[in-house]
């Protein structure tokens, strides 16, 4: 079992449903096919502990990316104060939705990439676009083994070569691209229309933050896996700044909701 852990760097073989003593190469090539009399290879087919939306957008002088602090266990909102950000190097931060354990592993993998760079001792520093390419290749390689890291990552950073903010999206298929504003999870349905209407590339940081809070308010009301406690990270030429957790104010005291129907005029309804 220890050998297998070292080999894959992740979970024990029991979860995979194959015997380590079989032919490893066979396993990699056949994916989920049966190979030479062994058990069929069963990888994780669905994420278990998941986090929902992340939204990122570029403003004038930086990039801001915001997420809530919840991790769900199926339909149950089980963990309410999880940090979903990981800083890599001095000017890149990545936020994750999807399987939280894969995010935790990738945090380690990114830190190892950072260490390999540091060990070079050559004064070179890595751009966010380069880290995004690396992550994208990692995701693509894993998906090609039909065993994906089940995440959508939003990466914010500061590009030194072009002296401008960077915002990128990397997902479980290995799709990688930069954008001006992007959302994952439910946000891609609820928040993107709002962003399309109100996004301007010359927004200030405060305006950008307010727009994101507006998006997360909508998500808290409508996404049952959404929380009102949010956290955000800002990437500028000065580096990365991770905020404290804050709670969005939400409104539930609509008169029509609170008043019992019996006390309302006959014609009124609660809608």
């Amino acid at each position: 079992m220890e050998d297998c852990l070292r080999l894959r760097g992740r979970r024990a073989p029991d979860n995979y449903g194959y015997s380590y003593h079989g032919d490893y190469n066979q396993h990699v090539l056949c994916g989920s096919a049966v190979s030479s009399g062994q058990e069929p290879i069963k990888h994780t087919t669905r994420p278990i502990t998941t986090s929902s939306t992340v939204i990122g957008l570029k403003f004038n002088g930086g990039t801001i990316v915001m997420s809530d602090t919840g991790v769900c266990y199926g339909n149950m909102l089980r963990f309410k104060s999880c940090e979903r950000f990981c800083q890599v190097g001095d000017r890149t931060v990545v936020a994750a939705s999807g399987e939280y354990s894969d995010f935790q592993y990738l945090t380690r993998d990114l830190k190892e990439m950072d260490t390999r760079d540091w060990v070079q001792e050559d004064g070179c520093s890595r751009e966010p676009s380069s880290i995004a390419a690396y992550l994208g290749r990692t995701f693509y390689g894993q998906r090609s083994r039909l065993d994906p890291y089940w995440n959508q990552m939003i990466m914010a950073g500061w590009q030194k070569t072009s002296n401008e903010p960077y915002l990128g999206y990397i997902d479980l298929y290995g799709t990688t691209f930069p954008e001006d504003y992007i959302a994952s999870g439910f946000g891609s349905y609820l928040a993107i229309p709002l962003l399309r209407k109100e996004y301007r590339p010359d927004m200030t940081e405060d305006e950008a933050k307010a727009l994101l809070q507006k998006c997360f308010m909508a998500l808290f009301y409508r996404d049952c896996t959404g929380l009102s406690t949010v956290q955000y990270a800002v990437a500028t030429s000065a580096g990365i700044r991770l905020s404290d957790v804050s709670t969005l104010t939400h409104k539930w005291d609509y008169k029509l909701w609170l008043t019992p129907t019996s006390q309302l005029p006959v014609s009124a309804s609660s809608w």
Partner: protein
Amino acid sequence: MARRYDQRTTTFSPEGRLHQVEYAIEAISHAGSVIGIQAKDGVVLAGEKKETTKLVDPGKRGEKVYKIDDHVIVAVAGLTSDANALVNRARINAQHYFSRYGENEPVEQLVVSLCDYKQQYTQFGGLRPFGVSFMFAGWDRHFGFQLYQSDPAGNYTGWKATAIGNNYSSAVPMLKQDWKEDMALDEAVHLAAKVLLKTTESSSLTSDKCEFAVLTVKDGKVSHRMLTNDEILAESKKLEQEQQQTTTTTTTS
């Protein structure tokens, strides 16, 4: 005495020397010379071609200067077959980095990875070292224009100007005297031609005897090219004129 300790690469002699590595380095000092000069706006590599009989059909490929990637070129001195094996390795290394990180590999990292590979042949396996020295010319966003030289032992050094191969010991003092901090690329090319003329011990430089390559940055993009036959002839003519001037001045005084 050395005979007893020079058969295996992985054995030290009692004097603390690795004879096979030294013999490899010795092989290179008989190869066609290579001059490398770093200017403020580019790097030039100049190499002497050894095979100069007219029966040789050169085709498209040169024998001295090779492209590793868009931002790195290399000139070789030594066994061409060994050079080809290592150049292929360097090319794959550069593409692997580009595929993984979406940007060009820093030049020094490429040199280091090739040198680490060469070093293995001096310590493990009992195989002979590679009989080739390299002169790398490259540009990256971290350190701009760079010139590196590496030898069969796996050592590498960064240079402002240097020479390897035949007569390099007479080339280096010339470079030391004439290299200037703010040299422009065309001055560097001229100096490389002058030094190459000295190391090849020939009366003139013709395009069938040498290869020149320059690496520059234009509009933020790195590019490199071989100098054309006409350009080499032009440099050759300039050198002839300079030589004539010096001879006339000596005779008049």
